């Protein structure tokens, strides 16, 4: 089993990193030929950075759009962020002080995350507009994250696992030295789903995470009268006449 998970995580990491790098490169390579920020938009690069910060951290546009989604989305994503920070302790030695510091909050974050996910999922059944646009994969993605969340919480609060051994296993993986993984069904489920999440990430709507940074309507400054915005393929047309 340790070997199986070792291979699984090598594969998952490779797919995740390569897939995401490929996608990000394709976003970055594709030119944005016209100036299309959704206005009113900041007129300077500094302003754009601030706008992006508000979008990524506070989900500003979503807040304007729909309060319920925003509440659930905030609970889920903030929970997720804290949980991920808390998890860093499995991969680093010695543990950074701020990761240490986040530990107690992280515990509740797991519940926030699961609660947010449940709320988002409920909307997919209860709100007819959202039901209409939901695909099977939208449901599966929420299910996957909820299984990860609940299995994690299960380990934390119900049937404990040997976290020291888990850490030894992952530190080992990072040095290509396979250590035993505790035999624990909750952990197996947790890790299986995490690996799956990593594998589907570059092929799914989870691309919204890198995507937001490349969205022209959000990342462009509103300065078209002051600067000439010209894509390479459009510049070629000028050479012709």
């Amino acid at each position, binding site marked *: 089993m340790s070997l199986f998970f070792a291979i699984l995580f090598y594969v998952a990491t490779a797919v995740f990193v390569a897939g995401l790098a490929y996608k990000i490169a394709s976003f970055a390579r594709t030119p944005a030929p016209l100036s299309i920020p959704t206005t009113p938009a900041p007129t300077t690069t500094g302003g754009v950075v601030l706008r992006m910060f508000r979008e990524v951290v506070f989900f500003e546009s979503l807040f304007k*759009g729909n309060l319920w989604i925003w509440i659930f989305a905030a609970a889920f994503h903030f929970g997720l962020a804290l949980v991920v920070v808390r998890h860093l302790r499995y991969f680093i030695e010695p543990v950074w002080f701020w990761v240490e510091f986040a530990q107690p909050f992280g515990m509740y974050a797991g519940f926030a995350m699961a609660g947010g996910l449940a709320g988002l999922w409920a909307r997919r059944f209860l709100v007819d507009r959202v039901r209409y646009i939901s695909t099977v994969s939208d449901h599966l993605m929420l299910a996957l994250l909820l299984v990860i969340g609940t299995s994690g919480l299960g380990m934390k609060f119900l049937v404990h696992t040997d976290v020291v051994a888990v850490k030894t296993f992952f530190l080992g993986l990072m040095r290509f030295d396979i250590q035993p993984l505790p035999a624990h069904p909750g952990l197996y489920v947790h890790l299986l789903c995490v690996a799956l999440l990593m594998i589907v990430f570059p092929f799914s*709507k989870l691309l919204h995470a890198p995507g937001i940074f490349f969205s*022209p309507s959000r990342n462009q400054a509103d300065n078209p009268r002051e600067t000439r915005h010209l894509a390479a393929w459009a510049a070629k047309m000028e050479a012709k006449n």
Partner: protein
Amino acid sequence: MAGPEIKAPPYREIPVPPALQPDATVGIKSFVANEKIQEAIGFQGKLADNWQETHDKAIGHFGTLLSKYRSLRVYMDACVHCGSCTDKCHYFLGSGDPKNMPVARQDLMRSVYRRYFTPAGKLFPSLVGARDLTQEVLDEWYTYFYQCSECRRCSVFCPYGIDTAEITMAAREVLDHVGYGQKYTNEILGKVTKIGNNLGLPGPALLDTLQGLEEDVKDETGVDVKYPLDVKGADVLLVTPSADFFAEPHIESLIGYGKVFHAAGQSWTLSTLASEAGNFGMFVGNYDLLRKIALRIREAALELGVKRIVVGECGHAWRVAYAFWNTLTGVGAGGKDPFAIELQNQLDPHFKQPTHICEYTWDLIQQGRLHFDKEANDHRVITFHDSCNVARASRMGDYPGGQFDIPRHIIKAVANKFVDMAPETIHEKTFCCGGGGGVLSDDLIDIRVKGALPRMEAFQRVVDEHGVNFLALICAICKAQFTKVVPYYGFKSSMVGGVHQLVSTAIKLGNEQ
């Protein structure tokens, strides 16, 4: 017109999103362009007889667009189906057809994207909502992508700024490419590229109209206000939508621009070559046409030797002018290449190029160079409709949001009675008039009436509560759309007019005692 009578949908008691009514507007389909129209602007004349050929061509072109437009590429991947945009589109609010929810409209195209361009859609199509491109899918594109006015309201509320307008443009570009164009838009594209304006008015007709206008204004005010055409060496070139030359109430604003120039002692001219500010090339997402049409402005500016370019009241035209002209034609500043510098050296760098007519007028008002008899507008209680493309795709003045303040400042400077509509229906959250983006066609009147619902609800409230009797606009399409559509909601067409119509009513031309 044949078919059932078209009626305005009832106002919503409490403005909540309507219940879904699948296929409510599936039958509203605008006329398809014939071969002559298509070929005149360089598109394939009609769909190939053999479906496979159409299919391959469409997918091929879709792929090309994905590699040329980052917006399309990122927006295809980034949507999480969160639902924030679902109740934001006026066509959905007015019709209840779920395919008019922005995300569902995008999904008409995204489903095809997934099938042909992503591993997940190639392997597990039904899991991720991917589908093959079939004739039915293409028909559905045609129907629903011509029920989008490219107003960008959805993009305001999307956490990733996904702009359905970008996707609509891409879909229309693919449709045009395979020979499936819309009659209304493509016919107009033919006229503007051949004759120089959307109405197809030749130079002599234009001259005639402008002379008539001078006589009318002289009769009315006793002042010789000029409406010059093709004057070499004039300082200002005014580029305005061609509807301003003929249509009511558009022409009232044109009269107003002339009076402002007169009062300011400005040397100015119109141009036959650049007798159209509108640029429908944007509506169909075709960069070549967009550029070709915009280049007429450059040509006219160079030929006439003007120092400054001012743009008349029009929404999408202002978007193209403000946001795209610098890219397409070099009208702007900051160019470092010879193409741009040639024009930018001629234009006066003290002014923003191009300048919106509202920016121009407001500047003069601030300098104290215009004087008004505000009481002349006292028979009017005015409200202002922010045009979608001005509000969400451009700017006026020096700071973000100037596009909301400047027209209102002008109205308040020329009239005493002004009230705003409900805050959730103005500024960046404004509703489209329902006729923008290539929808302003008689064969789409049903969807136009439905799409006007949210704006009409807000208008009705200020009519009831404040006795508003004038809907002030800064867009040629808004003017045409509302003139036609407000009667369905029980209002008179004469309640609709331009901001410079109000200026025109109140401005003192210097002959007063």
